[in-house]
């Protein structure tokens, strides 16, 4: 099964098995990864599962839709490779990537 490494702000890494077809958020939630709050459960409306992808992986994905792109403009610590992990669907191409979890998620 493809794996993804979640890197915390302090540098610690956790390896997560992500079945193909699952979102990164779903697997991170299942394994209780710190910093992936995912309050809306995958609706791309709360902006609390923000991660930074490696550049090569980011470019393999389609562009974020309007709503996700708008949320990514207001999340803390945005970067050019920011995505909501609930919108990143696992494929073999993304296997073994390292995604960075920000220190803070969007909060009302």
């Amino acid at each position, binding site marked *: 099964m493809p794996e993804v490494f979640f890197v915390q702000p302090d540098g610690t890494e956790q390896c997560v098995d992500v079945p193909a077809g699952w979102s990164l958020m779903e697997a991170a939630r*299942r*394994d209780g990864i710190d910093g992936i709050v995912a*309050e809306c*459960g995958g609706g791309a409306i709360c902006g609390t599962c923000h991660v930074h992808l490696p550049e090569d992986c980011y470019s393999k994905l389609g562009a974020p839709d309007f709503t996700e792109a708008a*949320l990514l403009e207001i999340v803390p610590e945005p970067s050019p490779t920011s995505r909501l992990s609930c919108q990143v669907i696992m494929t073999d191409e993304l296997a073994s990537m390292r995604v960075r979890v920000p220190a803070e998620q969007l909060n*009302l």
Partner: protein
Amino acid sequence: MDTPVQRTMQTDVLIIGASHAGVECAWTLRQAGFAGRIVLLDAQAAAPYQRPPLSKALLAGSTDAQRLALRSVETYQKQSIEHLPDHTVARLDAGNRTAITQQGLQVRFTHCVIATGARARCLPGLNGAGAYSIRTLDDSLALQPRLADGLRLLVLGGGYLGLEAASTAAKLGARVTVIEQTGCLMGGKVSATTAARLEALHRQAGIEILRDTGVQGWESAPHGWSATLADGRRLDAEAVLVSIGAVPNTELAEQAGIRCADGVVVDASCRSSADGIYAIGDCASSHRPELGRPCRIESVQNALEQARIAAAAIAGTAPPSPRPPTFWSEQQGRRLQIAGLADPRQPCDDRLTETAKGWLVERYQAGRLAAVEAVDSPVEFMQATKRIGAGDVPAPATLTP
């Protein structure tokens, strides 16, 4: 009748109920550094799962039960959270701080968190084959395979759940009629603008919506069910979804002598009237300063919030900073977000703003922003939500047409 005790255990925290609230409470205790024993009793056999998809993605068949798990079994083990499935608490003894399950397990506790949730409200005479509700994983999995090929589905109750399920069913090809006994969809909890616009979308999708319509009687028929409306009309359906609200599971607390009034009554720290016993989530009723009265709030966000508040009280850490309750729904592919509580007994001054993909309604009461609704506008939602409680009613130029 007393359940015979077959084995006993002692725990620092006993959490009764393992849905969003119970699981989050256990989790937050560990995150706060709480090192004591945590036992999470779960009446259900399946691993704790997310509820919102039960009327959406799971019902649509676009996800599976495995993907709904809140945490994996290994994750509970890693955090030393003892999750015991298939354990229904039969009796709670508040004075002696013990609980006993139907399976004969007696648990002595220092702290107890009641997170028993709510169950679907039933209609007498409307049960058995062809009658459905959606509250549990099994409920959703029972209805899902039937939603195809022109199934005639009656949805009784036009609240969030009924409209979400109607939306999902219509998309799968079911012929859907929603019967709502009041004049308002979504229980009058949203503005007239949002209710009317979503209703129009449902109608465009082929859903028939009957508001202000009572049902005089239900008859089981060979094909399914037959409803007689108040005006004498008859409606036949192969399946009926009863979505007329939820009833809090407070029986355990009531029998233990804990104060209940449409929910276990709790204070701002989620403490019940019994020492060492807390209540959180759908089964808890706490004072809402916005409304000036106690109220139960059924939403995932509230369940998580109260779980964190109770965990902080138990662990002796600082509670999370208060924030307005939020809700969300998905209907006809549109995402509705709501924050704050508008008092349904008071008039609302609604201000509508069109956005790039949807709309935003700011709801003012007594000159203050009481609630915000947004459809497909999460950024506008976030920004407006931060202003809840503030005055400054915008100029009448932006009045809802």
